[in-house]
């Protein structure tokens, strides 16, 4: 079983990395890109017999307390 956590900068937070990538895309001729946000992607391997709901609850807590910083980041948790 695998969980994925996608962490992105909050909209109100300056994201110079995303802006730079967006500008580079424009320079390369990829038009119509109105925004790029660079974040993090975490894959978490879970034991096969893990209880899905318990894992979701635990990882949600971990994502809030540790894996993301709620002051500057949002996250999305998915369990496959």
């Amino acid at each position, binding site marked *: 079983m695998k969980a994925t956590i996608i962490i992105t900068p909050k909209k*109100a937070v*300056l994201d*110079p990395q995303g802006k730079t990538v967006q500008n580079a895309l424009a320079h390369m001729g990829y038009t119509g890109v109105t925004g790029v946000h660079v974040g993090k992607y975490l894959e978490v391997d879970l034991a096969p017999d893990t209880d899905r709901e318990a894992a979701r609850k635990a990882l949600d807590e971990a994502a809030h307390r540790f894996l993301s*910083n709620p002051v*500057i980041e949002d996250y999305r948790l998915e369990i496959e």
Partner: protein
Amino acid sequence: MHFAVLQFPASNCDQDAVHALRALGHGADYVWHKDTSLGAADAVIVPGGFSYGDYLRCGAIARFSPVMQAVRRFADNGGLVLGVCNGFQVLTEAGLLPGALIRNRDLQFHCEHIFLKTANRDTPFTNRIPEGKLLRVPIAHGEGCYFADEETLAKLQANRQILWQYCDAGGGLTDAANPNGAMHNIAGIRSERGNVAGLMPHPERACEPILGSDDGRLVFQSMIAALESRAAQQAA
């Protein structure tokens, strides 16, 4: 007075801090990140560096180290804690200071001397800084852009928690003098209670004239004055 200077794996300003404090005639000892006690320290310095490789986010791992639990207790009891650079990042990650430090707006690592204006001289970290005196101290960071939401910023201003702001040589809080894009040119803040402070610049690297500036001494001398005044009150 006696200072505890924390050491995490990849701290690299710990020796500068110990040297600066000893040069000022005070005691300073290293405290390892796995230690659960700060000993008989009167104050704590969380030094700069790249604790735990800055993995995940700067300061995110250091915050869970055993020594940080001791620092939290020390701060809860009113002890003076100063975080410098990575130490500032550790204190925000630990929730001991509000806001966060994010990537510099130009994505560059900045290593240069800057000027600081002291926004509140009535604190344990700034009381020895003469009125109008600008501090010339170095910065060396890639993620020093201070960010906080509007509500937090309003609170910082209302409680006079902003201690230092980046300025030009004339004291102007200009955008050009802001090396990293920090909101309101914020270089350093303190906690609501006032006993925990953090700043991105390095006062410990500017404590002797041979290093180009000794303005950083004023920060440590302020802490020492505050500790001595507290000790005198307790003795009375």
